[in-house]
C-alpha cells in the first residue's frame, strides 16, 4: 500500500513538471522589458527612478553636510563632531556608483533598440543623466573608467576583460562637454520644464563642466603634487584657455536663447525677492533644473523642519544650521566695499544699536535672503535671538534654556534673560552663531511639522550661476569688461546701485561673488577644489576671524558667531539698546584642515583589489 502511494506521488510530481501552463505564469508584480518598452508612460517611470538617483553631496535633504566647511555650524548634538574634527578623512565625498551607470547604459541600449516615437527625448535624457554621473565622479574622484556600454560577464572564470583603467581627468570632462553638445538639440528648449533635462540644462551643465576643467588646468599649477603621471588627476595648463572658451560659449548660448531671466518678482523688497527665488515654484524664470517635491505624496523634504527658528517652531526642534559669521560678514556693503561688522569703536568701547538689524543695514540684499538675522522675521514672526542682558559694568546675565527667566539687579520679579532662539552655547537648535538659515526655507504653514514638511524644490542649476560662470570664463580669457557685464545684473538684483567696471574685476571678486550668491547651494567644496584654494583657506591653523572678507586666500578654518545682547542700565542712555560680541561656539574645538590628499577622494582598497588597473589617488 505504502509503495503504491509513494510511486503515485512520484508520478504526480513528474506529471506536474510537464504542465507548462501551471508554472509558466506572468508575474503580477514586475514588468519585463518588452512590456515597458511599448509604453512611453512606463518608460518615463523607469526614467523617473534614474532621475531620482542623481547624486548630490549637499542638498535640502542633507542639511548636516553644510556644516563641514566654514559656511555654517551644526546646532545639533549629533553633528558637533563636524566642528570638532580637524582632518577630513581621505575617503570622504567618495562616489563610485557604477551600478547606476550600468542601469543608465542598459536604458540607453534598450532605448536605442526600441520603436517608440518619443525615443530621441528619452535617449537624450538618459545620456544627460549618465554624463552628470560622470561629472560627479570626476569632481570627486578624478578620472574614472569611462564605461559606455553595459558590460556582461561570460562566466569564464576570468573577469580581467571587464577591468578598465581610469581615463584621464580631462577625458571625462571632454566626454561631459561632448555629450551636452550632442544631446542639446533633442531636448526641449522651453524653460517651463524644471525637473527634467532641457536644452538650457545641457548648456548650463556644459558651461559648468568646462569651467571646472579650465580652472583645474589653470590653478592646478599651484599644487603640482596633486596630479598623477597618467593624467588621471590633473589637467595640463595648456588646455585652460580652450576650456574657458567652451564654458563661455555654452553660457552665452544659453543667455542668448532668452528662455531664462533673473528672478525679480518682488523688486521693492530684494531680500524677500532673493528668498522667494528658491521657494516660488510658479513660472520661476531663473530656475533651470531642480529635484522637485510634492506634499502628501510621500516625496517631501525636511529642510524647514530641521532649520526653522526655535522661537516659532512648529515642532520641538529646528534651528540646526547656523550660518557662520565668516559667511555673514562676507556680504558686501552697498557701496561695493568689504568690511567686517563694527561692534566696537576705535577706543574699544561697544557701539550701541537701537535695533539689532541696524548692524546689518546697508548690506547686500542677499544677506537677508540667505540668513535669518537677529531682529528679522520669518513666517511673519520676529526672531528672538539675543544672548542675554549686559549690565553697565560689562557683566552678563543670561540663562541656559530657551527664554530662561532670572531676576535682574534692582528688581523683584523675574524677566526673560535670553531669547527663545538662544543663542545658548552648546544648546542644540539654538542659534549658536547668532544666525539661522533662510535660503530654501518654506514660508508655508505646516512646513515645520513632521507630518507635513515641505515641497520646496532643491535647485541644482539656475540662471545666476550661468551668468557667474560666463563672467569667470570671460575674466580668465582677459575680457574684464565682459565679465563685469555678466556680474552686474546679478549684483543689481542684490541691491547694488553702482555697477562694477572692468578695472574692479579681480579673481578675488569672482570667488567672493560665488560665495555669497551660491551659499547653501552645494557649490562651495567644488569651487574651492577647482581653484586649488581648499588647502589654503582650510589650512588647519587656528587663526582669528579674518578682517578681509573679500580676500580669497584668507584662512577660515573655524566657524565664528556674533551674539547680540540687550543693555540693562536703568537710567542710562544706553538702556534697552543692543551691543554685539564676536564669539566662537564652544563646540568649534578644532580648525579644519584640508590636506592635499583630500582634493580627490580615496578609491577604496576593495575597488583597487578587484580591478588592479585602478591607480590610487595621490597624497593619501
Amino acid at each position, binding site marked *: 500500500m505504502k509503495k503504491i502511494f509513494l510511486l503515485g506521488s512520484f508520478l504526480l510530481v513528474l506529471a506536474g513538471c510537464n504542465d507548462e501552463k501551471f508554472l509558466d505564469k506572468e508575474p503580477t508584480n514586475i514588468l519585463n522589458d518588452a512590456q515597458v518598452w511599448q509604453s512611453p508612460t512606463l518608460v518615463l517611470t523607469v526614467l523617473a527612478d534614474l532621475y531620482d538617483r542623481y547624486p548630490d553631496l549637499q542638498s535640502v535633504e542633507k542639511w548636516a553636510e553644510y556644516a563641514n566647511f566654514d559656511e555654517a555650524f551644526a546646532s545639533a548634538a549629533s553633528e558637533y563632531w563636524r566642528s570638532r574634527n580637524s582632518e577630513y578623512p581621505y575617503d570622504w565625498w567618495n562616489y563610485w556608483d557604477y551600478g547606476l551607470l550600468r542601469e543608465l547604459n542598459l536604458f540607453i541600449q534598450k532605448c536605442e533598440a526600441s520603436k517608440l516615437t518619443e525615443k530621441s527625448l528619452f535617449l537624450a535624457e538618459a545620456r544627460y543623466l549618465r554624463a552628470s554621473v560622470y561629472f560627479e565622479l570626476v569632481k570627486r574622484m578624478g578620472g574614472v573608467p569611462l564605461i559606455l556600454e553595459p558590460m556582461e560577464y561570460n562566466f569564464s572564470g576570468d573577469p580581467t576583460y571587464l577591468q578598465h583603467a581610469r581615463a584621464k581627468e580631462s577625458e571625462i570632462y571632454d566626454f561631459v562637454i561632448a555629450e551636452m553638445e550632442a544631446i542639446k538639440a533633442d531636448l526641449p528648449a522651453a524653460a517651463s520644464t524644471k525637473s527634467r533635462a532641457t536644452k538650457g540644462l545641457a548648456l548650463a551643465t556644459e558651461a559648468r563642466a568646462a569651467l571646472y576643467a579650465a580652472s583645474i588646468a589653470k590653478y592646478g599649477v599651484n599644487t603640482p603634487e596633486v596630479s598623477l603621471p597618467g593624467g588621471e588627476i590633473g589637467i595640463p595648463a595648456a588646455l585652460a584657455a580652450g576650456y574657458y572658451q567652451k564654458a563661455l560659449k555654452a553660457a552665452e548660448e544659453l543667455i542668448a536663447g532668452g528662455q531664462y531671466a533673473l528672478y525679480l518678482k518682488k523688486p521693492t523688497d530684494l531680500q524677500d525677492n532673493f528668498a522667494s527665488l528658491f521657494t516660488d515654484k510658479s513660472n520661476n524664470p531663473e530656475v533651470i533644473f531642480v529635484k522637485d517635491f510634492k506634499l502628501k505624496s510621500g516625496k517631501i523634504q525636511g529642510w524647514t523642519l530641521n532649520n526653522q527658528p526655535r522661537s516659532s517652531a512648529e515642532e520641538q526642534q529646528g534651528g540646526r544650521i547656523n550660518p557662520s559669521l565668516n559667511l555673514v560678514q562676507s556680504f558686501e556693503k552697498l557701496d561695493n566695499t568689504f568690511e567686517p561688522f563694527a561692534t566696537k569703536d576705535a577706543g574699544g568701547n561697544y557701539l550701541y544699536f537701537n535695533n539689532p538689524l541696524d548692524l546689518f543695514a546697508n548690506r547686500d540684499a542677499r544677506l537677508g535672503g540667505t540668513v535669518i538675522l537677529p531682529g528679522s522675521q520669518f513666517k511673519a514672526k520676529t526672531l528672538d535671538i539675543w544672548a542675554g542682558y549686559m549690565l553697565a559694568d560689562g557683566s552678563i546675565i543670561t540663562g541656559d534654556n530657551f527664554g530662561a527667566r532670572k531676576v535682574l539687579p534692582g528688581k523683584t520679579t523675574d524677566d526673560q534673560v535670553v531669547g527663545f532662539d538662544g543663542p545658548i552655547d552648546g544648546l542644540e537648535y539654538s542659534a549658536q552663531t547668532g544666525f539661522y538659515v533662510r535660503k530654501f526655507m518654506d514660508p508655508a504653514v505646516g512646513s515645520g511639522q513632521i507630518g507635513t514638511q515641505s515641497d520646496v524644490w532643491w535647485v541644482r542649476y539656475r540662471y545666476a550661476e550661468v551668468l557667474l560662470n560666463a563672467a569667470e570664463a570671460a575674466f580668465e580669457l582677459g575680457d574684464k569688461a565682459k565679465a563685469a557685464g555678466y556680474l552686474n545684473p546679478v549684483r543689481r538684483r542684490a541691491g547694488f546701485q553702482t555697477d562694477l567696471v572692468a578695472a574692479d574685476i579681480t579673481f578675488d571678486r569672482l570667488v567672493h561673488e560665488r560665495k555669497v550668491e551660491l551659499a547653501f547651494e552645494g557649490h562651495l567644496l567644488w569651487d574651492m577644489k577647482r581653484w586649488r584654494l581648499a588647502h589654503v583657506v582650510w589650512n588647519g*591653523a587656528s587663526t582669528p576671524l579674518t578682517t578681509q572678507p573679500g580676500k580669497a586666500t584668507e584662512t577660515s578654518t573655524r566657524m565664528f558667531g556674533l551674539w547680540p545682547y540687550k543693555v540693562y542700565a536703568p537710567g542710562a542712555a544706553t538702556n534697552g539698546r543692543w551691543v554685539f560680541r564676536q564669539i566662537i561656539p564652544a563646540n568649534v574645538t578644532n580648525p579644519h*584642515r584640508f590636506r592635499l590628499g583630500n582634493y580627490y577622494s580615496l578609491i577604496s582598497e576593495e575597488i583597487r583589489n578587484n580591478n588592479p588597473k585602478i591607480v590610487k589617488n595621490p597624497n593619501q
Partner: protein
Amino acid sequence: MMKQTYLSACFLGLAALVSGCKFDNYAAPSSEFRGRIVYKGEPIGVEYNNVNFELWEPGWGKSGAINVAVNQDGSFSSVLFDGTYKLVIPPYQGPFKSLKNTETQSDTIPLAMRGSRTLDLEVLPYYMIRNAKFSGGEGKVGATCALEKIITDASGKAIERVSLYVSKTAFVDTRTSVASQTIEGKDLKDPSAVQLQVTIPALTPSQNYVFARIGVKVAGVEDLLLSPIEKITY
C-alpha cells in the same frame, strides 16, 4: 528526567561554544616593530597623525597596506604577526625623500619579522633644523635655530616659511598652536641664524608653561619638518 536531559544538552552546547573559540582563533600579534625616522642617526620631527608609512605582506588574496603612523618625535611602533613584509614610505609622506634600498634597488625595504625588532629608517630630508634653542620669559617665547639644506642638488627645494608654534599641550603644530610667528621664505635672510619670537596669549585655564616647537614648510612638500618639542615655563 526530560528536563535534565535538556539542561545537560544546553550545557554541552555552551561548553562547545566556549571551547570552540580556541580552535578557530589566531593568537594576537605579538612581535613589536619599533624605530625612528632618522637622518644620519638624528630623528626627524613631524606632525602627529600626519605621516605614515606602509607595510605590505605579500601572499594574501587581496592586498592592503598596514599603515604605521609616525609620532611627533619621529618614532613609530606597530605590533605585527611574524612574517616577511615590504616597507614603503610613500613619496608624498614626510618632509624627506626615501633612500634607495641596496637590497631591492628601489624604495622598498624588506622587513623580516621574527619576534620583536627595532629598526631606524634612514631617509634624506630636504632640510634639518639644527641647534633649536628656546627661551621663555615675560610672556614671550623666543627661539633660534639654523636650517641646514641637506638636498643641495637640482631636486632640492626652497623654504616656503619657518614658524614658531606655541601650544598648551605637548602636541604642537599648526592645528594646536595658540600663537605662532611665521617668517616667509623670501624674507628669510640668513637660514643659519633664524630668530623667532611670539607673545603667549592669555590661556584658560591659566598655566605657567607652554610647549614650543619650530616648523619648516618646504615648498612643494605638504608635510612640515619640525624640531623637538620643548616645555617652557614662564
